[in-house]
């Protein structure tokens, strides 16, 4: 071969060698990490040790301790950006993430941290900022170890959000929503089919001074960090409104001015539509804490323990009802509770499964006629013309139609909630 040809071939070979060397300089690092996420539990409404807490799902022993961040999507995020892998936490707050990252030959995979954003693992709901943005919960960075496997995982440790001196309100809010899903709504096939993609926006006390829910948009607004510690009357109740709406879409009862009062309470007198709407949302939410056999379920707005007077199992009883008691939301709550619970059955006589209540709501026909979903509204849906419509009385007709059981004694024994 001539010298110039040899030189050309030599250059070509060297070039090829250089090319292959460079192309294999980028490698992939990979591994498996594990860890545990916790938060300091500071939500109120637990069943106190001073009461009988049979069938209570949240008890005093669960309060003010480090608790798992359950059922959340978690991400392994590289320092400088980029998601390397993702996973979910289980009931213990444990996660495992397989990760993969390109590195230069001989380089280390660098550092990464765990981030979570308040997104439920199955897409049931997600925490958002008041503008619909993402909240970021993060951990310090850890140096990743290349080559770890599922049987030899790298432990990133246990990370805790909040402490006894400084609880993290958002983490508590997320837990309240998880509890509502896990211990209440998940019991309904109807909700398993439809309760998805719900946004829980925190915090906006201007638009919703005491929290609110929009069923059509599947959006809840929590007013303030204080409400994060009042799960029963806030996030659980609002999720109850969404669930009620998803069972049967309808126009809201927008008039809460019965008797000239502003807003509502468990013992205020209300138009029957508003009273029932609040009662059904309350009942749905209360079940996240008190199941069927609970002898002393309570329901209130508090970041501590509900008082004995907020017991929703106890009823005044037929013949001794106070004036106006029929219009109080707590009256309708007690009626609903009696249909569900297995307590004091000699007077109650019914024990319907939680899922039946969603099914009964679904039986409301479309339209504004009697027993229909938009009964409080006129035919055109432009104004209210029957503020006592779509009441507990109407619900009674539908659940009796669904179950074939009379609820007359439950109704009258709980001061016959108002309705037409």
């Amino acid at each position: 071969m001539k010298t110039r040809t040899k030189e050309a071939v030599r250059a070509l070979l060297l070039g090829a060698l250089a090319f292959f060397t460079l192309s294999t300089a980028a490698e992939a690092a990979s591994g498996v990490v594990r860890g545990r996420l916790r938060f300091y539990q500071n939500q109120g409404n637990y069943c106190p040790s001073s009461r009988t807490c049979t069938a209570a799902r949240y008890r005093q022993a669960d309060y003010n301790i480090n608790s798992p961040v359950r059922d959340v999507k978690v991400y392994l995020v590289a320092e400088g950006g980029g998601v390397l892998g993702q996973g979910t936490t289980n009931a213990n707050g444990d996660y495992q993430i397989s990760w993969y990252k390109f590195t230069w030959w001989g380089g280390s995979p660098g550092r990464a941290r765990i981030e979570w954003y308040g997104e439920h693992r199955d897409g049931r709901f997600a925490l958002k900022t008041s503008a619909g943005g993402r909240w970021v919960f993060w951990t310090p960075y850890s140096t990743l170890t290349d080559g770890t496997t599922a049987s030899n995982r790298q432990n990133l440790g246990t990370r805790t959000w909040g402490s006894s001196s400084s609880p993290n309100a958002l983490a508590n809010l997320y837990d309240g929503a998880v509890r509502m899903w896990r211990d209440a709504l998940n019991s309904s096939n109807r909700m398993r089919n439809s309760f998805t993609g719900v946004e829980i926006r925190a915090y906006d006390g201007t638009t919703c001074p005491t929290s609110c829910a929009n069923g059509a948009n599947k959006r809840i607004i929590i007013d303030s960090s204080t409400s994060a510690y009042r799960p029963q009357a806030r996030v659980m109740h609002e999720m109850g409104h969404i669930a009620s709406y998803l069972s049967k879409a309808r126009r809201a009862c927008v008039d809460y001015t019965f008797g000239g009062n502003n807003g509502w309470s468990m013992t205020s007198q209300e138009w029957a539509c508003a009273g029932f709407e609040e009662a059904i949302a309350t009942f749905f939410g209360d079940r996240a804490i008190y199941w069927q056999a609970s002898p002393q379920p309570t329901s209130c707005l508090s970041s501590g323990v509900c008082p004995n007077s907020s017991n929703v199992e106890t009823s005044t009883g037929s013949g001794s009802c106070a004036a106006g008691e029929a219009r109080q939301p707590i009256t309708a709550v007690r009626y609903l509770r009696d249909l569900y619970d297995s307590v004091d059955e000699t007077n109650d006589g019914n024990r319907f499964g939680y899922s039946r209540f969603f099914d009964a709501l679904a039986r409301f026909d479309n339209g504004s006629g009697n027993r229909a979903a938009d009964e409080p509204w006129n035919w055109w849906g432009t104004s209210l013309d029957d503020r006592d419509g779509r009441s507990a009385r109407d619900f009674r007709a539908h659940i009796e139609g669904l179950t074939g059981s009379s609820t007359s004694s439950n109704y009258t024994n709980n001061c016959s909630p108002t309705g037409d």
Partner: protein
Amino acid sequence: MTSVSRMLRRGIPSFTVAMALSFTGAAAFSTAPTTEVVPVVRGEAVVALPAAEFGHELEAKIVLERDERDSIAIGAGAELRLSVKNRFDAEARVTYAVEFVDEFGFEVDRPAMSDVFVVPARDSAPVEIELPPALEEGFYLARITVAARSGDESADDMIEQGLGVVDGEALLLTDEEWLEWSNANGGF
């Protein structure tokens, strides 16, 4: 340069709570006819609610209201000026507790509790909270918890007020500013 200074010099926009939300009644029902909003009374104001919104949730009988200022000059006499509103129909006996922690949850001052005082029915009273002396630059949280009793009824409320101390001033942060700017959302 501290984290607070860097944050402020970058001009990170505040996350205000006064924002326009898009979920009005017009967006709520895709198949319903145009629906008149019904003016109702919410709190002390008459507002019009869209037909798809479930609101008017339970109001607390005792309410702490925030200091409306944007910042407080650090120094002798620096204080948070809140108020407590009694929504009971009778006078209430009230007390409150104050805690100050830093962004990592460590106490910066001993917790304090007020004497019991009386607030007339449907009336308000000022709550003045002295800031810890000599706060260094950084992020802090003031947690004020109030408890009230009126007759046989009791109620409670709480405010968490984030503070960003820089250049001799304590900025009063919104909930979102506190969580976004401080280490409060870090898991340790």
